[in-house]
């Protein structure tokens, strides 16, 4: 199909799919950040079982393939009488996996601060709350800007998992596979989706490195 044929026939669908991908990406990323922060708090706290659970969570979800997790949620959970909608399954997968990476990045952000500054904060009489608010979190956040930017892009790529279940409206990958199973969309049909993904990634990347330049800590 030529590009004009594709656009006249599927133009609205592409726009709809782009919006779906964006929506999935931002909801997943927000969820991943919340869970990632909770997991990180567990991993730094002095209560051993919580620490270990946090570590186990990260090892499971940073190592499980997205497809394997999604298939488990969609096909295996109903056997446990847990029935979720396709959309919920996709969201759970695209939240749980990036959350593990979010926690890893936050942990390395915290570790990058160095023990010395923690001791200095304590020596000035800062209690735990002040130390976290004034010394630890501001620095951990700055160290995490670039990794989190990449995580946002990775989350967008992960949302292509949505193409593995019947969803309406479809995401960018799902739409292309739909077009090409019914029609001969050709390279162009893939390129349109690819450019949409890629354009989003480039914009996210630019914003991320702009913020990073603004707040970067000179070492």
């Amino acid at each position, binding site marked *: 199909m030529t590009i004009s044929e594709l656009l006249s026939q599927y133009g609205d669908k592409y726009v709809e799919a782009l919006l779906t991908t964006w929506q999935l990406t931002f909801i997943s990323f927000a969820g991943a950040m919340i869970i990632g922060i909770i997991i990180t708090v567990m991993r730094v706290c002095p209560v051993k079982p919580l620490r270990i659970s946090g570590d186990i969570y990260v090892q499971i979800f940073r190592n499980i393939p997205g497809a394997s997790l999604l298939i488990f949620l969609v096909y295996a959970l109903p056997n446990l009488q847990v029935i979720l909608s396709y959309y919920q399954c996709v969201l759970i997968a695209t939240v749980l996996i990036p959350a593990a990476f979010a926690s890893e990045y936050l942990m390395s952000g915290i570790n990058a601060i*160095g023990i010395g*500054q923690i001791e*200095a904060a304590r020596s*000035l009489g800062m209690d735990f709350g002040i130390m976290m608010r004034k010394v630890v979190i501001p620095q951990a956040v700055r160290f995490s800007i670039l990794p989190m930017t990449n995580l946002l892009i990775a989350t967008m790529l992960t949302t292509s998992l949505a193409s593995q279940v019947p969803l309406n409206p479809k995401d960018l990958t799902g739409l292309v596979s739909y077009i090409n199973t019914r029609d001969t969309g050709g390279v162009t049909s893939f390129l349109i989706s690819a450019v949409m993904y890629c354009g989003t990634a480039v914009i996210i990347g630019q914003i991320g490195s702009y913020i990073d330049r603004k707040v970067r800590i*000179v070492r």
Partner: protein
Amino acid sequence: MERNKDVLDKSLEIPVVELRHVEKYYGEMHALKDINLSVERGEVVVLIGPSGSGKSTLCRTINRLETIKSGEIRIEGKKLPEGGKELAELRTQIGMVFQSFNLFAHRTILDNVMMGPIDVLKRPEEEVKKEALELLKRVGVDSQADKFPAKLSGGQQQRAAIARSLAMHPKVMLFDEPTSALDPEMIQEVLDVMTELAHEGMTMIVVTHEMNFARRVADRVVFMADGSIIEEAAPDEFFTNPKSERAREFLDSINRH
């Protein structure tokens, strides 16, 4: 140069810092063995000894950056709390200067000095800023006030770190090898600031390898080896006529270099 000692009425004063029978272990290693030390108001005590002798550890136990196994540490007669608000509050009265400066990397030099008084002591910003600038001037880094720590030389960073501690109006200052991480040409500028502080009557506990500083500024030299205090004496006496074999060996090994 002699300090005005008559303000110290020894009979009325309780020691600013007092350690009694302090023991500490790192796993199997006996890091501090029955340490007894008391530091009076206005006194400058210099801890020296070979590396691994426990002098840094001793210094760090005083504001509980290191915990102890047994024994007692008192600050102005008050037992060092084990945590919580009381510990944080007590720490505001104990200044600490580290080997690696440990300025907060995400804040300017001025902010570093102001953070303690504002965020911990909750003092009004304007007043604190004025005082912070004066302190920075006193240590000679006022021209760097708006820069970030990484932009400063080691000597400048360390002087700023001293100003940060002074901003809390501490009752005692701990210096944990403050010049060990510095290039040779920067050591003196930091020692000068410390000397001035001593002459102004600040109570100081200093861990250092700078023997000249110890000789000129200390009221008392405490020599440690293998986690024990081996010898305590006035600097003149210690450096000219050390009583213990260990101290003599130590001084010999330094003089050879």
